[in-house]
């Protein structure tokens, strides 16, 4: 499906797409474009700081927006102590992220609302695929030596192939941050290109590890290189850096997405990950997507949250909306 036909599609139809049905073919590496990247940190921070103050959604709108956020969550577990049992429990939550009685009261009980994807390590892909059978929730796998991305290239490529073979529909790769810090754009481009090829039909989400990149200008440049190399999504963080998704970093990345679309016509999605744990924060991100990229980027095919604890807060807020009373964790099934 071409990007334009997808963007032209009505929101209802679009929101039923669980898979990322579009594919960014990428472009040649354009170094002159990279050289022109300008990011004014203070101005970006000013804009980012007013995302949550210039816009506000209340009452039914807030409930709807929070439900939208739920559908955009990549429900994630990436711990050393992950077990099949834990993953199966998370998959059950992915199928029914919000209590059915709440959804019924909100009038969306028949929408088959689920999270956007489930995100796991390679060795949990099979478990997740089995647990999600019958749903159209895709399984995403972190790959390429996550989170540092420093294992041999051969190993990293092989890891992608194995994950795709195991049933992952989305591959979250990490870039080698050292290549950004030393300006080795050709090498970085070639690597991401190779990852893209290894993905086959699976979609490529590139994690920049923005906390390691240090400057917003680096973030802007790395975003562009990933998109030129064919990334279907660009993602902020592994969740393991000391600083993960922030609004300023996200603003720089989504402006790069906009610029890339304006210049090439290709559509790329955005995934902030790490540190987004409140309903309020999720609304700020949705506002930012709407303001800077527009309505199409408020759907799971173009926008995801990488989050593990966000859902819990949203559930509580939704129950508050329904009952008028503040809710508690133990009233909602855990992931």
């Amino acid at each position, binding site marked *: 499906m071409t990007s334009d036909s997808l963007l032209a599609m009505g*929101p*209802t139809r679009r*929101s039923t797409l669980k898979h990322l049905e579009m594919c960014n073919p990428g472009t040649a590496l354009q170094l002159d474009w990279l050289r022109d990247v*300008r*990011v*004014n*940190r*203070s*101005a*970006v*921070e*000013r*804009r980012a700081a*007013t995302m949550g*103050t*210039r*816009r*506000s*959604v*209340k*009452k*039914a*709108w807030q*409930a*709807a*927006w929070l*439900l*939208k956020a739920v559908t955009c969550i990549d429900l994630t577990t990436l711990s050393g102590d992950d077990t099949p049992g834990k993953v199966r429990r998370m998959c059950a939550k992915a199928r029914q992220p919000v209590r059915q009685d709440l959804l019924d009261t*909100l*009038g*969306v009980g028949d*929408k088959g609302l689920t999270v956007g994807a489930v995100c796991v390590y390679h060795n949990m892909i099979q478990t997740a695929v089995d647990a999600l059978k019958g749903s159209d929730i895709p399984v995403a796998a972190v790959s390429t030596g996550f989170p540092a991305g420093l294992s041999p290239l051969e190993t990293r490529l092989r890891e992608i192939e194995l994950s795709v073979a195991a049933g992952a529909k989305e591959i979250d790769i990490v870039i080698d941050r050292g290549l950004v810090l030393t300006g080795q754009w050709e090498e970085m481009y070639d690597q991401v290109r190779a990852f893209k090829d290894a993905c086959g039909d699976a979609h490529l989400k590139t994690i920049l590890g923005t906390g390691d990149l240090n*400057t*917003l*200008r680096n973030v802007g440049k790395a975003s562009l290189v990933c998109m030129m190399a064919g990334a279907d999504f660009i993602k902020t963080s592994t969740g393991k850096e000391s600083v993960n998704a922030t609004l300023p970093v996200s603003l720089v990345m989504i*402006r790069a997405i906009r610029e890339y679309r304006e210049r090439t016509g290709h559509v790329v999605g955005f995934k902030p990950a790490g540190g987004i744990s409140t309903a309020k924060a999720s609304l700020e991100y*949705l506002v930012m997507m*709407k*303001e800077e990229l527009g*309505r199409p980027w*408020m759907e799971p095919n173009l926008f995801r949250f990488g989050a593990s604890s966000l859902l819990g807060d949203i559930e509580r807020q939704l129950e508050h909306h329904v009952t008028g009373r503040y809710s508690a964790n133990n009233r909602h099934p855990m992931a």
Partner: protein
Amino acid sequence: MSVAEILDSMDYGPAPESADQAEDWLDGHQRKFGIFIDGQWRAPKGRKRFETLNPATSQPLAHIAQASNADVDAAVAAARKALPKWAKLGTHGRARILYALARLLQKHARLFAVVETMDNGKPIRETRDIDIPLAIRHFYHHAGWAQMLDDEFPGMEAHGVVGQIIPWNFPLLMLAWKVAPALAAGNTVVLKPAEFTSLTTLLFAEICEEAGLPAGVLNIVTGDGRVGELIVRHDDVNKIAFTGSTDVGRLIREATAGSGKALTLELGGKSPLIVFEDADLDSAVEGVVDGIWFNQGQVCCAGSRLLVQENVADRFIAKLKARMETLRVGDPLDKAVDIGAIIAPVQLDRIKALVDSGVQDGAELWQPSWACPKDGWFYPPTLFTNVSPAATIAQEEIFGPVLSAMTFRTPSEAVGLANNTRYGLAASIWSESLNLALDIAPKLKAGVVWVNGTNMFDAACGFGGYRESGFGREGGKEGMVEYLRPAFRAKLPLYAEKKPAPEIKPPAADTHVDRTAKMYVGGKQARPDSGYSRPVLAPNGRLIAEVGEGNRKDIRNAVEAARKAASWSLSTGHLRAQILYYVAENLDARREEFIARIRAMTGARSAAAAKEVETSVQRLFTYAAWADKFDAAVHNPPMRGVTLAMNEPLGIIGMTCPDELPLLGFVSLVAPAIAMGNCVIAVPSEPHPLSATDFYQVLDTSDVPGGVVNIVTGDSAALISVLAQHDEVDAVWCVGDAQTGTDVERLSTGNLKRTWVNHGRRPDWYDNRQAEGRAFLARATQVKNIWVPYGE
């Protein structure tokens, strides 16, 4: 709308801020307000009231008092009466009250924000996040100045009673900008809010009572422009501070001419926003949004002229239009609205008329596809492209959400276009090159320059204009100074009536060759255009010499010469210091000649004349010393970055010099002016001009570039009047009788030049505290605040 439908549309719904408490407050006053005088609420004399309306609904909010002449008299009398007890409270006592005001504003912040939005029509996002927090910050900051007053401003005292007139675009914030420094400096105040927006001022009066502000220290008289005029013309007011239109600013300048009232004016603007090719264009688009669509564009420093480098113009305009589509106009109490209502139908009509003129002038109009609400007074964000510099919309302040875009090719062309205006309030530069931005910032004729930002304000940084955007600063130390005056000034004696000139007697038999004192223009001796000369007499009437009878054409030529010498302002302080030392050295070498000349003209004794020459040499040393030391300040607003408060020369200063010490008076005025990089047209003492005309030989031999100092002799009152009216002259200093000073102030309104007159008071030119130093340097400069946020 159902959740399911919203899930589909993902629109923003209504997000109203509650008006309940504001309505309760209005109801609690039966929607009828009095005036606040001497700590008491009073009904206006004659009980006249008018309605204040909510611009978003066009519905009335309350009835506001129309103060009368008697009310203004009572307010001024109360302020006068309160002065001693306010002074007696001391710096710390006043600091405590300012601090309490800040705290109380903070405690009631939301009520202030909601009332402001209802009365003014600006979005609650702005009142809540910008206006009210900045007002609070202003009181905190100035509580600090009150505390430090004696240490930081030695030898200064409060003016006394200050009359303040504030506009409707930032009602409470402008109150804070006016009231906080006035009170911190120890003045008492009579304040008039704009008739469209009195409510937050009245609410503020209530917290003043709570803060324990002594009765009479702040008095509030509401009403229309007539009330403002009563304040301006009131005999017992010592200073006027006004923010509003340039036209009214001119009227105030005229009305206060000769009154001795200190005056600060913060007026209109047509501020440029310059986008260079190496800017972060997406961020610059947000800069435009904050620049021209902040407060519906009803901002004196709105970035209403967009100058974009030609090679990125198409991309930039495309980005801008896309952004304009996402702006939301509507109910200002809605938390998700960007642009609220225009203050009043009269302003809306004016915006529409100017937009029509833009279309007629051939500019291309663009507005977003969505429509504005029909109730209330709304206007959509508007962009004009292909605007010619001559178009009305490129020159006139629109005071609405209308942006006029032009392109430029080079940095120097950008500066040319940016400065191609009568105004000079603010400017904004967008570039990722520090070299470029910091090269451009000093070249812009604007009191505030934002690098990669727009409409940034803080109590620690001075705000105010160049040119016809007014004079004086608000905020920072430079703002505090405006509410203080030298303590010695009120005690200065008045000049005695001028003695009639003695009858002319023929010159003493002399063997010298006749030496003709010429005028001095552009570094050359010049004969008067008139072809006439005027006699210079000794005290006994004997003719000593003749000097040229200067006229308006000589002034014109001198100003032209001064303009050509403008690069003097770019010379280094070190070079100017060297030249001033050289002038001193050459004057010293010719001391006997100058002593003799002074004695011949004034009849001074030898010792007195020697003292005058010696002091003149010292004074030149003083300003040579200062030339490279009148440093800029770095302010620290709450941001990651710095604000550079640069002392920039005014440009061209016209001046008349006092009679009593013809050399020292001349040197005392000329030296600080040129030390700071100004060019000067000096009119020497009318009866004793020869010390000045002799002086040009000193200048000639001291490497002073031609045109930096120009000397025009003749009828000093007539000549200074021509200077006062010359639109290329930036400032006029006048030492002399009260009438000439009055005329100078009255005639200066054409380009609103900075005037410095002595109101007929005679300073002691031998007292260094009075006659030299920082006060003179401050008069020879204006502060430009350059905001430089940084961070990679």
